Structures are given as structure tokens and as C-alpha cells.
């Protein structure tokens, strides 16, 4: 009965309903948009950092974290590979790496170098390493190396020259070797571009006296959402041994902190937005109430219980809030899909700097169920809270004054 009455009331004055519903709808859209671009900028940052640095998941010897030395490289043979690969369905592919710091000498100059033993195919899948080749190619031949362009310049080396690497191998053994440069990669990050030397995994293992061993195994899941699950399943499969599984949150604590800080400040901005949104909705509902005071006064004077009238009005707001939030969902889905496909492009120096790092200077909108859930619920709750104004008004209404109009 109340339901029917409320439903009819809503449609009796379509214009009024439309305005109220639209104010709730816009509230949902704005709140969702703001959270979505914030989330989107975080996702981009995470993806860039994991692709170029750490991967989403890494497997290491448990001692390697505190002491990143070749002594703590772990055995990575076919058996180990299969054990990890079969641990979880969420794994897409594995990227093995062995790395250490060495001295590198050209003809005249000697510099420190980061030496990384890699599988070029897998590395390319992770971060398109081959697309950064400016000269030559990765070779599978013995004693060959690919070096970064900045490093080549500093050592005055070019393709075809030989490079001498000198350092410490596993368990203090001397590691020294002469390598032919078969290619040069121009890496986007200056720090890396000035010191990277790539060897094939086999060459590096031989040089370091670390047969079949690697220092890090990067695991790429099928999708970023599966990171936790994949990490857990791998951890279960290899538990008991010396290996430990790290997720990007553990590998990039600085990034996690920066994002947390950003999130906290966004929460504050959200609070400010809610104040504005709240006034918008309150404005329409208050004006609507004033407009209907005559009607309310009339109904009360012909004998309608105030409580009943209040429930009807409450149901009306409830309906309008539901319709408003639902249509807000509907339209913001289009808006977010649009900004996901056509990300916001950053301008100015920021864009230039991000490009220098090899990233795209864009913020795509993120679409996630929890954004819908939280913002929808919040605006809904806000509308219901505001609906207490007309209810209060009904209970305190002076019928004589209201119907004299």
C-alpha cells in the first residue's frame, strides 16, 4: 500500500523526480570517476615498475634478500622449473635471471657494471627488451654480450669490440672473461643505461662458476589479479626448501608506501568532494520538500498520520536513491569505459619524464567492482541520510500555516 503510494507519488511529478534522481546520479558518476582515475594511475605505476624492475612475483633463495650475493644463487634445473610451473594454474611464464656487480674494462676505460644473465626471449616477453636494440642482436654464441648504449659510450665500445669482465664468482672464485659485443640496447632509464651488461644465462653461469644456478626467478601471472593466488600456490609447492616467494609489494616497498600516501590524500579529496555532492543532493531534496509542504499540510489535516506520510516520503527517497545510483552506475560505466580506452594524457614535463623512463604518459581509468560497490553504497547512504530532512519536517509541520498558502 505505502509502496504503491510512494511509487505513484514519484511519477506524479516527473520533473521533480528527474531532478532529484539526476543529482544522485551525478554524485555517483563524479565520485566513481575520481576514484577510478586515482586507481588507474596506481595500476599504471605498478605495471611499469614490475615490468621494468621486479616482475609481479619473484622466487629467490631466502638468504638472497639480505645478502644479494652469488653465493645465494639457487639451483634452477628442469626439475625445479617444472615444480614451480605446475604449482599454479595462474602462472603465465617464468623469467630466470642471474645478476651481480662486476668491473668492466674496454681498451682504455674501466667502470663498474651490472652484469645480468638472461634468457633474451623470456625477457623480451616481459619488457620488450629486444625493441630497445639499436644495433646488432642477442646472440646465443659463447662469450658474447649485449651492452647498454650509455655504458658503451662511457667505455668507448661499439659492436664487435671485446669487453673484459672482472669480479667475484660463486664462493669467492675469481670470475674473469672476455666477451664479444654483439648488440647494443638503448635502455630508457639512465641509471640502467649507464651500467647494464647482458649475457646469456649459460655464459653468465659459466663466468660466475654457478652452473645451472640463478639469483632471481620472475613469475608472470596471467593477470595482475592473480598475483596473490599464484604466489601462495608457489609458496606451498616449494615450502620446506631454501626458496622464498616475494610479491611486488615486498619487492617494491617504496612504491607501496608512495601509493599508500597517495591513497590517503585521495581519501581526503574524496571527503571534500562528498561535501560538495552532499550539498547538491540536499539542495534538491530540501527544495522539493518546501515545494510539497502545502501537499503535506493538506494530507495531515484531512487525517493522514504523520508517521504514515513520513514512511511514504521515505520510500519515495529510497526509490529515487535506487534509481539514481543505478543510473549513475549505468552512465559511469560508459564514462569509465571511454576513459579506459582513451586514457587521459599527461602534458608538460611530466609526460616527457615518464616517456624518458620508457613508460606511456597516460592515466587510464580503472574499472573495479569495489569502486562500484563503495561509491554506490556511499552515495546511497548519503541520500538516505538527507531524506531525514523531509521526514523531520513532516513531524514538525504546522498544518495551519502550510495549507494557508
Amino acid at each position: 500500500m505505502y509502496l504503491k503510494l510512494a511509487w505513484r507519488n514519484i511519477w506524479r511529478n516527473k520533473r521533480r523526480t528527474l531532478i532529484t534522481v539526476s543529482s544522485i546520479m551525478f554524485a555517483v558518476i563524479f565520485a566513481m570517476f575520481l576514484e577510478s582515475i586515482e586507481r588507474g594511475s596506481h595500476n599504471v605505476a605498478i605495471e611499469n615498475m614490475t615490468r621494468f624492475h621486479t616482475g609481479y612475483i619473484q622466487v629467490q633463495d631466502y638468504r638472497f634478500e639480505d645478502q644479494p650475493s652469488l653465493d645465494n644463487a639457487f639451483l634452477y634445473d628442469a626439475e625445479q622449473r617444472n615444480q614451480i610451473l605446475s604449482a599454479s594454474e595462474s602462472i603465465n611464464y617464468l623469467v630466470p635471471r642471474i645478476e651481480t656487480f662486476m668491473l668492466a674494462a674496454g681498451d682504455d676505460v674501466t667502470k663498474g657494471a651490472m652484469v645480468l644473465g638472461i634468457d633474451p626471449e623470456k625477457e623480451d616477453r616481459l619488457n620488450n627488451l629486444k625493441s630497445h636494440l639499436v644495433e646488432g642482436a642477442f646472440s646465443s654464441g659463447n662469450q658474447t654480450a649485449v651492452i647498454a648504449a650509455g655504458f658503451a659510450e662511457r667505455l668507448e665500445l661499439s659492436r664487435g669490440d671485446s669487453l673484459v669482465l672482472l669480479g667475484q664468482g660463486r664462493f669467492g672464485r675469481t670470475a674473469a672473461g672476455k666477451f664479444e659485443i654483439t648488440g647494443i640496447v638503448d635502455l630508457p632509464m639512465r641509471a640502467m643505461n649507464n651500467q647494464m651488461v647482458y649475457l646469456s644465462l649459460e655464459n653468465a653461469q659459466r663466468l660466475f662458476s654457478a652452473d645451472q644456478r640463478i639469483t632471481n626467478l620472475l613469475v608472470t601471472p596471467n593477470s595482475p589479479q592473480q598475483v596473490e593466488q599464484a604466489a601462495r600456490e608457489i609458496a606451498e609447492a616449494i615450502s620446506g626448501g631454501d626458496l622464498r616467494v616475494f610479491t611486488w609489494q615486498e619487492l617494491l616497498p617504496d612504491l607501496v608506501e608512495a601509493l599508500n600516501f597517495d591513497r590517503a590524500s585521495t581519501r581526503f579529496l574524496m571527503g571534500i568532494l562528498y561535501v560538495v555532492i552532499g550539498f547538491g543532493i540536499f539542495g534538491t531534496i530540501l527544495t522539493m520538500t518546501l515545494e510539497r509542504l502545502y501537499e503535506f499540510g493538506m494530507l495531515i489535516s484531512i487525517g493522514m498520520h504523520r508517521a504514515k506520510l513520513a514512511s511514504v516520503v521515505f520510500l519515495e527517497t529510497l526509490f529515487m536513491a535506487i534509481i539514481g545510483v543505478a543510473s549513475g552506475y549505468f552512465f559511469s560505466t560508459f564514462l569509465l569505459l571511454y576513459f579506459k580506452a582513451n586514457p587521459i594524457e599527461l602534458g608538460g614535463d611530466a609526460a616527457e619524464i615518464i616517456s624518458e623512463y620508457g613508460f606511456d604518459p597516460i592515466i587510464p581509468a580503472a574499472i573495479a567492482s569495489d569502486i562500484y560497490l563503495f561509491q554506490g553504497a556511499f552515495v546511497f547512504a548519503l541520500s538516505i541520510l538527507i531524506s531525514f530532512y523531509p521526514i523531520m519536517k513532516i513531524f514538525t509541520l504546522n498544518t495551519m500555516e502550510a495549507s494557508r498558502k
Partner: protein
Amino acid sequence: MLIFISWRNIWRHPARSGVLLGAIIAGMWAGIMVSGLTNGMMEQRFNNLIEESITHVQIHHPEFVTERDPDMFIRKSDEIIEFLRSLEEVHSFTARTLAGGMIQSPQTTAGVQIQGVKVEWEKSTTTFHENMTRGDYLNTDTRNALVMGEELADKLEMEMGKRVVLTFPTADGEMTSAAFNITGLYRSASSQFDAQQVFVRSSDLSELIAGETVYHEIAMMLNDADSSEVVASRINDEFPNVKAETWYQISPELRYIADFGNSMTFYVMLVIMLALAFGILNTMLMAIFERMRELGMLMAVGMSKGRIFLMIMFESIMLTCSGAIAGMLLAYLSIQWLGDTGIDMAALGGESLSEFGYDTVVYPVITSADFMAIAILVVVTVLVSAVYPSYKALKIKPADVVRE
């Protein structure tokens, strides 16, 4: 006359006018707060980086920044130092000897950047010494003293008082090694920095690199950050054999913070202004429908449509102006208050931040130019959103509404 009617109209409906006024005040407050907060956050990160190590202006050998060759030290550094002492814009300055090399502990090897600092100069110029967690900032008699990040110490399994070996190239292009004693540990806001930077005394390092006192970098703090460019170009004019650069040129990270912050603020502001505009639009529209009868009556007794439009616009303008003034006052007071006490981000879910050396309390800052720009933006937004409802009022057919 019309203004008088508008004025009376506003007070005839205190509740309705009140909520519009509230919305405008909220919008004004929101806009200024957003701007103040983002400004404050950026300024804070800025100052951290600038005061801790980057400083306002740095001088190098023209190619040192890209080549980092130990031979590219600053020639005739005495003359430059004399010159800096004579510049009144310069607050303080310091000189550093830099090298890239390897650090070895009995357990492992890592790549590091070695900074040779002049302790007293550095302390009066940067705030880095505040990051010390153990020991003193190279202020000891120990020979070849060294300070490293806790992060690096963990990695090398080293602690206070232990010895490490640094290997780095000399000015002649040879490699040299020397043992250093760990006399202090620090922890800065970036664990990456902590794992890569070690500090030694400039005198120890330059002796090993060149056999005499050499500096690769002279860094200075100015009395006013805005004079960075002027000072840099004066140095460049005076000493053509070196290159002075401002923080803006030195640190892409700072430029990134500045620009990224600006574009995010733009979108947040856009969303808030749109939210405000729609709030006002909807409320005004609702108000017009409520006043149908009244407006229809005015038309029926002969008031022209133009005058009705003007009357409603006058109402909006008066409401907007008083709302804007009240909102600016409220925002000003909020910023003043929060500028003193700060906003603690830890309370908003950033609890773990302080452990990492982040300053979790943000102090909003606003310049008077920003303040006015936002005030104008809000006023324009509100007035533009008032046009449609007023226009809607013109469409009223007096015969229909009066009969209701």
C-alpha cells in the same frame, strides 16, 4: 528596483536560499582546500628533496653529469667559492667529491655512489645529517670514516665499527681500493637511495682520487628558491668552464612531482567544479518549478520576461557573492588552522608511512594568486549553472501555472 525585489525574494525563502548559499560556500571551500592540500603536499616533497641533498643550484664540470668521469672535477674551485661568498642571494653552499664504485664486505659486493662531503659545510647547507640513526655524521677522528644506509649495511651484513673496501677509478683512469671504517648509519625516505649512497669525508676521497683536494660538485641553498635561475646564469657567465644548473634542470624527479601534481589537481578540480555546477543547477531548477505560480503571476500582471530573467539572475548573483565571500573566509580560516596543525595522513590510512621516513602530516599552503583564481572559478561556475534555470523560467506559460 529590480534588485530590491530580488533581495526580498532571497529573504522570503530563507531555507531555500540557505541551502544554495551552503552549496556555494561548500564549493568555494572545497576548491580552495583541494588546491591548498595539493600545494602543501608538493611543497613538502619538494623541500624534502631540495633541503636534503639536491639544493637549489649545483655546479659541475660541464660533462660530469653525463660522463661521471673522476677526472672531470671543477677546475679553479677556489675562485668559484670566493665568488659564491660574495653573492648575497646565496644562503650557504657545500662542495662534494663524487665517485662511482664498488663496496666489498667479506660477504658480498655491491655497486655504490660515493659522496665525499665537507662535514661542516654540508651540515650548514643540507639537512641530510638529520637522517643519522647511529653514530655521528663523519664527525670523528677515525681515519677513512664512512657512513652508509641501514639498508646497505643489512645487505652487506655490516655494522658500526666494521671495515669495508671501496674500489673506484682515480683521475688517471686507474682503479684504486681503500679500506673505510663504518662510523655511522642513516635512514632516508628512500630505501633505494639508502642502498646506493655512502658518505665519506671529501678530504679522504679526493686524496685517493687525485692526490689533492678536488670537488666534482658545488651545491648551494639560496635565500629564495625563485632566484635559482638568476644565480645559475650569473655563475655561468662568470665561469664559462663550469656549468651551473637549477634544481629544475638537475632533478627530473622534482619536475615530475610538480607536473604530475598539477595535472592531477586539474582533474580533481574539474570533478569538484562539475559536481558543484550540477548541484547548483538542480537546486535552482527545483526552485524555479516551486516558484512557477509566483513567476506566472508576475508575468500575468505584466512583468516582462526579460525583467523576470534579470530578477532571477540578480538573486543568483547576490547569493553567489555572499556565498563566495563566506566560503573564502571559511577556507581562509581552515587553511590558517590546518596550516598550523597540519592534516595527519596517518589517520586516513597511511599508518605505516612514518616508518619509512615519510612526513605524514601535510600542511596546506595557498598563494593569494591561487586563492583568487579559484574564487573566480567558483563564482563563474555558479553563475553559469544559474543561467539555465533562469532561462527555463522564461518558458513559463502564465495561463497554465496560475490556474494550478
